[in-house]
């Protein structure tokens, strides 16, 4: 149950909003529900609804509307490549295709080990670093926007990062995405 597992965090989330407008907390609550599993189960939707005074259907509509929530399991790590205009002008489509073919999947698909989903996404507000991507996982979202070199080199770097993610995941299932890999956003 989320209420027991995340009691402190739920309290902190609810305190942000006026008590008579509890449903404002639905988005942060869904991020909480999605933590660990990388998707929101029907049971979790029902519990979030019960906490906030919303029907399960109402909560499900929020999950369906916003693209960063998932209602079924996919890869443990989502490599989300921006293929919007500014990135496309600098080779993002080629990057996506090459990366997918090296992984033996098509865009939107997940590797057979269930670890990596690669998907094209809309603009991530890092157009000056194009092409770039983010990694969404149970630990949150991380920009990988400091890569250099040509497209081929960037694909190689990304494959190395993916290997690092797989290794990290084997070592600990709760560890944030590879902290040592070159190219990731080093603002911590």
């Amino acid at each position, binding site marked *: 149950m989320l209420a027991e597992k995340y009691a402190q965090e739920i309290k902190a989330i609810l305190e942000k909003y006026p008590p008579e407008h509890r449903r404002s907390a639905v*988005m942060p609550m869904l991020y909480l529900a999605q933590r660990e599993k990388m998707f929101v189960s029907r049971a979790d939707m029902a519990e979030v609804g019960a906490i906030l005074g919303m029907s399960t259907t109402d909560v499900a509509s*929020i999950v369906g509307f916003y693209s960063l929530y998932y209602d079924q399991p996919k890869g443990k790590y989502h490599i989300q490549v921006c293929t919007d205009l500014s990135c496309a002008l600098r080779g993002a489509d080629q990057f996506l295709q090459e990366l997918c073919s090296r992984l033996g999947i098509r865009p939107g698909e997940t590797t057979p080990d269930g670890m990596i989903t690669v998907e094209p996404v*809309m603009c991530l*507000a890092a*157009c000056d670093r194009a092409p770039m991507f983010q990694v969404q996982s149970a630990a949150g979202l991380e920009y990988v926007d400091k890569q250099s070199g040509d497209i081929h080199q960037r694909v190689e770097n990304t494959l190395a990062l993916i290997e690092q993610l797989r290794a990290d995941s084997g070592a600990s299932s709760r560890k944030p995405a590879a902290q040592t890999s070159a190219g990731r956003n080093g603002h911590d």
Partner: protein
Amino acid sequence: MTENGMVLLRHREIQDLDNLDVYRAHGGFEAFQKAMTQLKPAEVTDMVKASGLRGRGGAGFPTGMKWSFIDNKNWPHYVVANADESEPGTFKDREIMEGNPYQFLEGVAICAYAVQAHEAYVYLRGEFWQLAGRLDQQIAAMETAGLLGEKLFGSDYGLRIHTHLGAGAYICGEETAMLESLEGKLGQPRLRPPFPPSFGLYGKPTIVNNVETLANLPMILAHGAEWYRSFGTEKSPGVKVFSLSGCVNKPGNYELPLGTPFRELIFEHGGGVPEGRKIKAIMSAGASSALIVADDRALDTPMDYESVPNVGGQLGSASVIVIDDSVSIPWLINKTMHFFRHESCGKCTPCREGTFWMAHLTERISQGKATMEDVQLLEDVANQVRGKCLCALGEFSIEAVLSGLERFSSDFDAAVNVTQAAETSVGVAD
């Protein structure tokens, strides 16, 4: 950038400006303190009005005037900072919040004091997850330092700031959709009027301002409206962060006075176009732009709210995407339509259906599988969307389509000729 240094991107000149002590050592929060201890709320609004500051999110609405519309008969008031930066080609707010976060947060506090809001929300796009985590820490540091909380500077005024993460929906950058989202609903725009200063968050008077707009406020309060007006043009005063991307050697954010010509941004600051290619078109407001033909007249046009329309565009959020002569315009329009189809919230039929069919048609055209009837149908659909939607998304989606069809018709002719050639050769083979 001004002769005296940066106004907004000050972190490029001052190391560790994202540290509260460093920020305060450089005058940080003196403007907020001055506003609170020396000025009445209405005087703060008057000063912002006098500065001529206009909204930096895209609409360019005068900031002080927006504040003066707040309904003082209905309480409480709210402030919402629009940090949902999602327009393709726009990446300025992210740099401001990463590098100079306290100047932005001080701006939020000044705005909140001016409209007497005791709660302010920073609505960040979900992808700014790491950034939101840092802002939470910075807000906590401000609370510890007595810059947020109850009875600030010995007054009766108190303020709290909260972050709120979106979850991947461009439409939430539209202010009423943002308010719906913050209320825990689908991010779909409201019918306006009423506008947020009279009916906003939870139906209460609310000011929604963009991150860059807010980041200007501490500098305006500290140095005065006259000082701010010394930059830029008479009708578009001040500085602007221009996000430069696409076919340029040095993409990035450039802080420049409003009214700087396109040519200076692209060639002096952006280092020109790779491999010496020619510029074919400019989009000045991200994917929501009309395609401006990049002739000498356009390149010499000052980038301000009044001048860009003279060459058939809008300044918008000043997200300048450079398109060189190797780019096919039907391909480009298909890219932008793919975006708008994905991001249409589905509330208004002309936008939901129009973006779907325009994406379908532009895909066919860009793949060389279309006929002239398809091109005419595209124009027809675009014209059917115009003026029929609750918010600007539908309107934005047709900007590149209609301007592209009108100004780059030879690209469409070429795409259609590919189809004809293919059909002819099939005929011969038979």
